């Protein structure tokens, strides 16, 4: 005791610190669990405005519900003891009841928080979202494939080549083989003339590489067959489309674009804004520029057909078109719109119409859903979006229509 108390200091070792990521394995498995939980709650996460329209490589923070560790804990009616600043009085409010969020901590002396943020790249999130969705219409016509060349695929070895592709290991092996072979030859010769053995042994040490020993890696061109797709976003920007409606439309287009990107290598996107007449616009204008006036849906479809004809011929491109509107079309335009929609359905792999009617908006407004019901095309699908929670289900329904068609077609 006393002065016999001993102590040791173990100094900091940077090498240890680098090596000591001991929780890596446990973190990875925790992440797997989080991934599962994200998949289960995907609809809520998509409804979060913050993820829409972000860069694919960007890391985003997804607020997720922690994977809970259940044990017996006390509920909300438990009293506790706290500490004030010296002037506490009966009846003073000191905090909020946190429903069901207790019991995270071992000691239980701090209220546990169940929410925390996790970093996910958008890419990863999209992978999770689309894991169980299949884009069915991938019949590949010959012309749809554009060959992309890539050097750098190894295929075997050869005797000639450029210096950088020399395979040293195999070259040395070749030399060893040759050396052994020649020694056997020499031994055979020595047997015939025993007198010369000593002399040959002295000459033996130098055994240089020969051109025949050199082995080069063989590289071939890698040809990848890739396919093209174009996403055509058509949106009604008439006066009746307010910010909320545009946000819902934007979310839907975002999903569609991201999903198509996972299936095709070369994806282009076209934005068409229309009121009574249609224009091709940039992404920024598409979502932010307010227009006013009435609506001729046929104008938007006409413009889409025009662009497809000019730049994205259906024999070369997989065309996905989607139109968002609040359905408030001029009555006189309806027959023309129906006809244009029919034409569009013929050239597109998939053509969709989404009617955006946020809850609370007048329900008896004119609706295009009734008109389009008359359009009898396999690859045409209408969805109704009333609030942001609808986006994911309607997106799934949109693709499911197509899947159904494929199964029927086979």
């Amino acid at each position, binding site marked *: 005791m*006393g*002065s016999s*108390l*001993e*102590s*040791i*200091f*173990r*100094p*900091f070792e940077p090498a*240890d*610190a680098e090596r000591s*990521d*001991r*929780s890596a*394995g*446990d*973190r990875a*498995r*925790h*992440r*797997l669990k989080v991934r599962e939980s994200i998949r289960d709650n995907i609809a809520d996460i998509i409804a979060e405005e913050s993820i829409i329209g972000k860069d694919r490589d960007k890391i985003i923070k997804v607020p997720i519900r*922690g*994977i*809970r*560790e*259940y*044990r*017996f*804990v*006390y*509920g*909300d*009616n*438990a*009293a*506790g*003891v*706290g*500490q*004030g*600043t*010296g*002037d*506490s009085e*009966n009846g*003073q*409010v*000191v*905090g*909020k*009841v946190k429903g*069901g969020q207790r*019991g995270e901590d*071992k*000691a*239980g*002396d*701090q209220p546990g928080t169940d929410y*925390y943020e996790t970093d996910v790249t958008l890419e990863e999130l999209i992978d999770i979202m689309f894991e169980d969705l299949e884009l069915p219409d991938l019949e590949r016509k010959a012309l749809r494939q554009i060959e992309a060349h890539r050097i750098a695929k190894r295929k075997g070895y050869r005797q000639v080549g450029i210096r950088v592709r020399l395979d040293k290991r195999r070259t040395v092996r070749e030399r060893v083989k040759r050396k052994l072979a020649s020694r056997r030859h020499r031994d055979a010769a020595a047997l015939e003339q025993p007198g010369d053995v000593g002399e040959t042994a002295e000459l033996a040490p130098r055994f240089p590489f020969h051109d025949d020993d050199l082995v080069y890696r063989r590289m071939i061109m890698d040809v990848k067959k890739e396919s093209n797709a174009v996403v055509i976003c058509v949106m009604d920007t008439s006066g009746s489309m307010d910010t909320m409606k545009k946000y819902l439309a934007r979310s839907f287009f975002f999903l569609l674009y991201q999903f198509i990107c996972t299936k095709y290598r070369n994806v282009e996107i076209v934005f068409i804004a229309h009121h009574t007449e249609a224009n091709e616009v940039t992404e920024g204008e598409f979502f932010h520029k307010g227009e006013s006036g009435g609506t001729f849906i046929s104008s938007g479809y006409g413009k889409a057909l025009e662009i497809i004809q000019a730049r994205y011929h259906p024999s070369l491109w997989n065309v996905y078109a989607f139109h968002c509107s609040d359905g408030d079309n001029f009555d006189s335009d309806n027959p023309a719109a129906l006809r244009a929609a029919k034409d569009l359905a013929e050239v597109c792999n998939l053509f969709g119409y989404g009617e955006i009617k946020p809850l609370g908006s007048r329900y008896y407004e004119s609706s295009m859903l009734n008109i389009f019901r008359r359009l009898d095309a396999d690859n045409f699908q209408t969805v109704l979006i009333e609030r942001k929670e609808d986006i994911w289900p309607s997106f799934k329904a949109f693709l499911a229509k197509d899947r159904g068609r494929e199964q029927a077609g086979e």
Partner: protein
Amino acid sequence: MSSYALKDLEYWDARIREKVAEFGLNCFPQEFEICDHGQMLGYMAYSGMPSHYPHWSYGKAYEKLKTLYDYGVQGIPYEMVINANPSLAYLMRDNSLCLQILTIAHVYGHNDFFRNNFTFKSTRPEFTIGTFKAHADRVRRYADSPSIGLEKVETFLDAAHSLSLQCRRNLAVKKLSEPEERQRLIAAATPPADPFQRIHRRQEMTEPDLRRVPPSPEEDVLLFIRDHNPFLQEWEKDLLTIVHEEAGYFIPQIETKIMNEGWASLFHKRILDALELPQELQIEFIVRHNQVVRPIPGGLNPYQLGIRTWEDIERRGDRPTPDERETLPPAKTGRDLLFETREVDRDASFLRRWLHERLMRDLDLFRYEPKGEDLVVSEVSDTDGWRTVKETLVKTVGMGSIPVIRIEDADHNHNRTILLSHAHDGRDLQLEYAEKTLAYIHRLWGRDVVLETMVNGKRTFLAYGDRGFSAKAAK
């Protein structure tokens, strides 16, 4: 370590050890490891153990700590100490020299407490690190075994972890084996020998039910399941043992949080005051010390509650008020009281014995209750209310925050249903958590599970069976 070298730490450590001896602390040999914040987070996620078995929940703990740290919500504690012999402590290399000195002194306080407090007597500190290593090796072996695999091990551990703290709280009391327990029941039921039995009527003897399993209500849920479910594999039984043993190591720390932190803070303050630090260090020290023992309005700072109570205990010994002089044994100095208390109390008894009205009023302790959405102060530490506040505090510290669940009958209704009872003390169980935890017990036990508890003042049976969860009010 930028502005100072290891030599400096060793110099101050030597001086601190002199003071430790002067103050009469009785410590294990001490090892300090200097680490960076990444390693520190790693150690924290695994409760400071240099080696620990893998489970995803530790990955979660790490992410959570890291999120809090990255966002600056919560700093990293200055130090971590492990109850082991020799004791092991981690120091953060980025801390200033003053903080390191403070931390080293604080560590010796914990070290002394671990060595001398009675709750830690059951933890076998000389084997701590080895035991955790052995557990880790065994769990890894099961995870690597092709016939078991990580997936099975981890899901089994999920279930075991949910019950790890459902065990006996006072480990200083000897646990009776089942035969001993039966003997005790018989002895308790037998009427005491009566010297006047000729003139007295013979006392009735009610026979205890000796066939019942467990003979008397059992709190060690994991061990009971291990010993009474014949369908568990050997590796599963071993996992239950491991989880139980690790909980047994941590329970003393949960039980003495306030005392332990208060004790270490009391002595780091005294040691540093006695060291006569150079002025610039002294000023930083005062700032840091006050941060550590500041009140947290709305919460409860165990450091502050602890140090204030300890200081008051010493005062009572040295300068008792006239009332106190009557209740205290004579001729005990403040120092005697301090060192005696650090040996024989745990948080609940510590506060029950030593917390009194004046101290509570100084600390402005209050009792809060949920009322609708809000937590509302229901009682403050005034002459009428302090007893209620104290009672609530004593009930909620340490293992008081964990509901007491006992196994009543392993053959309920004669079909091997396990009957549990919750010792209800006014606090209801959180039902969602109870449901999920019952599902875990069902997994471990393999048959139906019934838990008797109170929900909103009504006796209720929560059951979990093959057909899922059900809750039924008792008739």
